[in-house]
């Protein structure tokens, strides 16, 4: 095996472009999954089977099927219905939707972990439902779920290369393009492999620091 440093330096400008797109997908996808996940978790607590059953079935379906096929579905089917987004937007929506079905379970666990006494106290103080949620339950639940949500952000980072399949030029997409143009596969693929390890390691360090701060 020969290692060509000049290929690495040629690839670096493309690498930075790709990293930027990857981080963009990660940030937007995370925000979408945090919001949608909370919406699903709250809908699952509506005391009506007509709401919980469809929401439960759809999220279970999305959770148990491959993100790659979901990406293809959104990328090819939406234009048939005359809805067109850019590839990047489609990717962000797909990844955010997929992960919202995971974050929903995290929120649910966080809400269930709020002691029953807190609910009773809210009832005793005659707080309206809305205020019980916004001032009593959610602040305590969300504090508990931050570390678990962070884990899913790291998972999501490792799913961003899938967007390459729908023509988004994130890190892996840039590496593949560069490889095909220059017939040098080893260097770009190794560079992005190492980049993924470094970024996810840094993210897990940041997460551990955040967890320690929240614990006090």
């Amino acid at each position: 095996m020969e290692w060509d440093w000049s290929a690495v330096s040629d690839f670096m400008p493309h690498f930075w472009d790709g990293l930027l797109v990857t981080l963009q997908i990660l940030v937007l996808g995370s925000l979408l999954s945090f919001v949608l996940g909370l919406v699903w978790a709250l809908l699952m607590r509506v005391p009506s089977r007509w709401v919980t059953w469809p929401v439960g079935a759809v999220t279970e379906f999305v959770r148990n099927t491959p993100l790659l096929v979901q990406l293809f579905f959104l990328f090819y089917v939406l234009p048939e219905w005359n809805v067109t987004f850019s590839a990047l937007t489609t990717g962000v929506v797909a990844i955010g939707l997929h992960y919202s079905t995971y974050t929903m379970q995290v929120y649910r666990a966080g809400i269930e972990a709020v002691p029953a006494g807190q609910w009773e106290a809210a009832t005793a103080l005659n707080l309206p439902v809305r205020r019980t949620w916004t001032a009593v339950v959610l602040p305590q639940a969300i504090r508990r779920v931050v570390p678990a949500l962070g884990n899913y952000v790291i998972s999501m980072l490792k799913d961003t290369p899938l967007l390459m399949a729908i023509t988004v030029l994130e890190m892996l997409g840039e590496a593949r393009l560069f490889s095909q143009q220059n017939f040098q596969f080893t260097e770009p693929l190794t560079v992005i492999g190492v980049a993924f390890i470094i970024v996810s390691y840094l993210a897990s360090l940041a997460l551990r620091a955040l967890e320690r701060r929240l614990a006090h």
Partner: protein
Amino acid sequence: MTSGLWELVLEGVWVTIQLLFFSSLLATAVSFVVGVARTHRLWIVRFLAGFYTEVFRGTSALVMIFWVFFVLPPAFGWQLVPMWAGTLALGLTYGAYGSEIVRGALGAVDPAQKEGGIALSFTPWQRMRLILLPQAVPEMIPPFSNLLIELLKGTALVSIMGMGDLAFSGNLVRLALQESAEIYTYVLLIYFVIAFLLTRVMRGLEKKLKTGVGKAPVREPDTELKRPETSNVGGAA
């Protein structure tokens, strides 16, 4: 859809199932070897096993697949059949996640059990085989069940490399029909059915193993919050 196209889809299902079977075997083997190595008394063994886990968990499964398909052949002068390349990439990546499950379950066995083994002068291997593993394995089944579903979703990644699995045959049918809503709905449904069956099988297995050690399967509501770091698989779709 014509029957010829359905045949194509069925071939894809068969490839997906084969790939799932082989890579889950490899992933299980890797999980146990690396997971047990992380409880070894020599620090160098623990360090190497930990290093393996960090590297393979840190990178994306799809990047790993690209690496096995494009970097290994020129580097070593041989090329793997796509099925084995896919098995290798998926098995090694998911094995790293599985090793965390094995390590966690071994660590959760009551320390008194291990001390009892030492007091009875069992060798380390006997302690592992006769005391720790029989109690730890039933606890591993629910997380392994989740990991198996993630692995099933991960098998779709090989379609990007042109391997004829279910996701790939879905793309072929889309090109043949020039219409995507129907075929992708079917493909998603097939994946969902496979995942559902796997969950059922694993639940049955858990029940059987737990009866063996006199426990009942429990579903704790807050296991989600107690998950070890990134126990959910990234890079898997």
